[in-house]
């Protein structure tokens, strides 16, 4: 395991809110993810030295920024942190070049404009040096803010909702650019966002925030497949979060009862979860991993087709590249999610081949590895 | 500006039907104590009569009357202002009387260590500031200028002169120690004890006699009562009161 480049622990109280978090991050980009008001921006401000927490310790690349035990508290000016604010905070009365060069004052004049120009070029802003922020598009402004932060060769880069002010197409193209820039530059970076797709695309590690606490800190794929709890799953916008009852639990498998079905799921690899029989259990099934069984290939084989169910498509939505189906099982009783039990996602091609417009009744199969239990 | 404002205020004070019997007297500041004492005398034998005093420099008061202030009696500290009003027909014929005289004196702060006993002493460099009333608007100032010119000191004292808006303000500057000496009336010097003390009196031959005229204003609503007040000013009882305060009798 690589040594942590970032070691953060903060405990501070504001009127009506307590922040109590601790997490570490290695190389790459750490993303603080969670709903608004969870304390993510507050954390960034503490990292930058703009707010002084009551207790805690912040170490970046071996340098102690803050330690309440020893009374160390470096001023923002001393930390060399590049901060991209949510509204970009570009100086309106300065040109792009002056904005980018703003932090370079302590360097000799010749080096100053050279460095600024280099960064401007690298971020694709060449030719805009003499413009003022009000003359730029949203995407350009974001890049100038980034350039300004990178120009000082920061020890740590902080980005607060870098893409939320942009319209959708710009946001998506800039997202990939941003990831490339962050990877290229190699600076330790912390990004704040409330959008899971953004978090997933930018992060190497995701730290999930909720109401001032960290509820999971993990590499991004681990978060996707193994949310630590139902809370995390819900924050991520996970679909098909369901509740059943435990029948039997072993370290490898959990057998559970849900909507009249007996399902078999793999146990959570992140912890040995052994709930007692008859206890409630939450789990989720990713919509794209529910298989509709083709009818032209004979009866389903229980060995091959695990967790067999049958149901009816009660509604479907066209998302262009994919279709999302809402399926209600044949079981009597209230469906698990309002009018339906399961959301199923199928690629467009599959939708056409299976003639889903015409044929509504289907048998479903879910591999046991695709049912993810959520430890309580 | 004070004039229109004061007119408005005075008009507001006089209701459509004046309460019982009320007289409004515009009185030059240096005659304040004299008029108040005589006023007390006046109402003692006239139950139901109230007097209201409007104080200011003679110039100010004249302007107010010209602007239509509802005044009954005007008491000025110099003839000039009364002459003006008479010329404009604002005075009730036959009611104008000179009822007192005053003399100039030079006062200094009570704790002043300066030795001032004659006019030339004012040239001493240790005398840094001398206050006189503003000659353009204050009669006491006019008399002071006249006296200083006669004495040949006016031009040489220019750099030391501070002007006051009325003679009581001049007295106030002296008693506060803001100036080293000041020209006021003898009656003011008396009123200003013990904070000021008299240094010397410039010779009465260096300025015109200071005469206080009084008259009933033409548009007075109570001309009868107003006349009675002016009569008191020249009556023996009136003269006794004024003499006690330091005024000289009229010629």
């Amino acid at each position, binding site marked *: 395991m690589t040594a942590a480049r970032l070691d953060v622990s903060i405990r501070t109280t504001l009127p009506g809110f307590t922040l109590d978090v601790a997490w570490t991050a290695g190389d790459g980009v750490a993303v603080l993810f969670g709903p608004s008001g969870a304390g993510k921006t507050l954390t960034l*401000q503490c990292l*930058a*030295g*703009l707010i002084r927490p009551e207790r805690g310790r912040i170490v970046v690349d071996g340098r102690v920024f803050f330690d309440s035990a020893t009374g160390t508290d470096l*001023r*923002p*000016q001393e*930390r*060399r*942190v*590049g*901060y991209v*604010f*949510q*509204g970009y*905070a570009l*100086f*309106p*009365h300065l040109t792009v070049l002056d904005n980018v060069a*703003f*932090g370079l*004052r*302590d360097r000799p004049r010749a080096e100053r404009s050279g460095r600024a120009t280099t960064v401007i070029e690298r971020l694709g802003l060449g030719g805009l040096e003499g413009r003022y922020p009000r003359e730029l598009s949203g995407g350009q402004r974001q890049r100038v803010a980034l350039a*300004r*932060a990178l120009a*000082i060769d920061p020890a740590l880069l902080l980005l607060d909702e870098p893409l939320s002010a942009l319209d959708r197409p710009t946001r998506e193209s800039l997202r990939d650019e941003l990831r490339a820039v962050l990877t290229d530059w190699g600076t330790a970076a912390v990004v704040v966002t409330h959008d899971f797709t953004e978090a997933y695309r930018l992060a190497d590690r995701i730290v999930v925030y909720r109401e001032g606490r960290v509820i999971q800190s993990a590499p991004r794929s681990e978060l996707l497949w193994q949310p630590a709890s139902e809370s995390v799953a819900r924050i991520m916008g996970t679909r098909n979060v369901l509740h059943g009852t435990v029948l039997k639990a072993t370290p490898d498998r959990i057998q559970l009862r849900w909507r009249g079905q007996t399902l078999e799921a793999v146990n959570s690899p992140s912890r040995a979860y052994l709930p007692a029989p008859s206890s409630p259990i939450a789990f989720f099934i990713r919509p794209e991993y529910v298989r509709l069984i083709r009818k032209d290939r004979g009866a389903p084989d229980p060995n091959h087709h695990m967790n067999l169910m049958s149901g009816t498509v009660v509604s479907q939505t066209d998302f262009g590249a994919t279709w999302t189906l809402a399926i209600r099982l044949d079981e009597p009783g209230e469906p698990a999610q309002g009018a339906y039990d399961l959301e199923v996602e199928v690629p467009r091609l599959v939708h056409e081949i299976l003639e889903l417009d015409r044929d509504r009744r289907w048998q479903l199969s879910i591999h046991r590895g695709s049912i993810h239990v959520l430890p309580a | *500006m*004070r*004039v229109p404002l004061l007119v408005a205020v005075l008009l507001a004070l006089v209701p459509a039907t004046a309460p019982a019997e009320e007289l409004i007297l515009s009185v030059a500041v240096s005659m304040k104590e004299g008029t108040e004492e005589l006023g007390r005398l006046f109402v003692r034998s006239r139950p139901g009569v109230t007097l209201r005093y409007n104080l200011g*420099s003679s*110039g*100010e008061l004249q*302007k107010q009357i010209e602007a239509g202030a509802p005044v009954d009696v005007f008491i000025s500290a110099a003839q000039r202002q009364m002459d003006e009003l008479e010329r404009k027909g604002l005075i009730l014929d036959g009611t104008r009387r000179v009822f007192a005289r005053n003399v100039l004196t030079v006062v200094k702060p009570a704790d002043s260590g300066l030795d001032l006993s004659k006019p030339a002493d004012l040239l001493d460099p240790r005398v*840094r*500031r001398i206050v006189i009333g*503003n000659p*353009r*608007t204050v009669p006491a100032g006019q008399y002071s200028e006249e006296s200083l010119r006669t004495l040949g000191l006016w031009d040489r004292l220019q750099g030391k*002169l*501070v*002007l*006051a*808006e009325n003679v009581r303000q001049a007295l106030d500057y002296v008693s*506060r*120690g*803001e*100036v080293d000496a000041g020209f006021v009336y003898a009656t003011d010097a008396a009123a200003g004890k013990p904070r000021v003390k008299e240094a010397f009196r410039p010779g009465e031959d260096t300025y015109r006699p200071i005469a206080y005229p009084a008259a009933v204003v033409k548009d007075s609503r109570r001309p009868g009562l107003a006349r009675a007040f002016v009569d008191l000013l020249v009556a023996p009882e009136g003269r006794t009161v004024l003499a006690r305060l330091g005024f000289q009798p009229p010629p």
Partner: protein
Amino acid sequence: MTAENLSALALSLRVAVVATLLNAAIGIPLAYVLARRRFRGRGLLDLLVTLPLVLPPTVTGYYLIVLLGRRGWLGGPIYGLTGWSITFTWYAAVVAATIMALPLLVRTARAAIESVDRDLEKAAFTLGRSEWRTALEVTLPLARNGILAGLVLAFARALGEFGATLMLAGNIPGRTTTVPLAIYTSVQTGETGDALVLVAMLTVLSCVVLIAAARLGARAT
């Protein structure tokens, strides 16, 4: 236009300019501190700075005399040491004008400074600027129009100062008679022609000043 009127105009302009410069030196830092810093006594400072705006000018004039008169708390010792007193000098007119106009500048400048996005200042901090340099390079330049408007208002107020000036500086032609005082005297003596000239001068000057302030306020940063 008589020589006396000209001297009143020249004096008024001189007093107003000096008072405004003094106000800039005192008022802008005050406005910054009130806008951006939290400290004990902040409310009291705010109150003191606003007081000349709401107190009658004669009351302020009275306090100035108590403080600066020949026997005043400050004026007394100074007179004892140097034999000099500020009363009845044009410096007294400057002091009166400065104090009466200060609240106008501070309030306007403070509002302008408060409207500067704080994230800009935070960005400057992270980029290595001290608070002092940030104020000079970011906050004040961005509040510039509001501050200038405040200065213009302060200048207009200083130009028209009367009550406190009369009390502290007196009305001495050639030395402390500013245009408002000259108008006062002219009306007293019935010299309406003179008064009109002075009134016209002051009105024109005030209009010019107000138009300048409006233009500055309307200009986008």
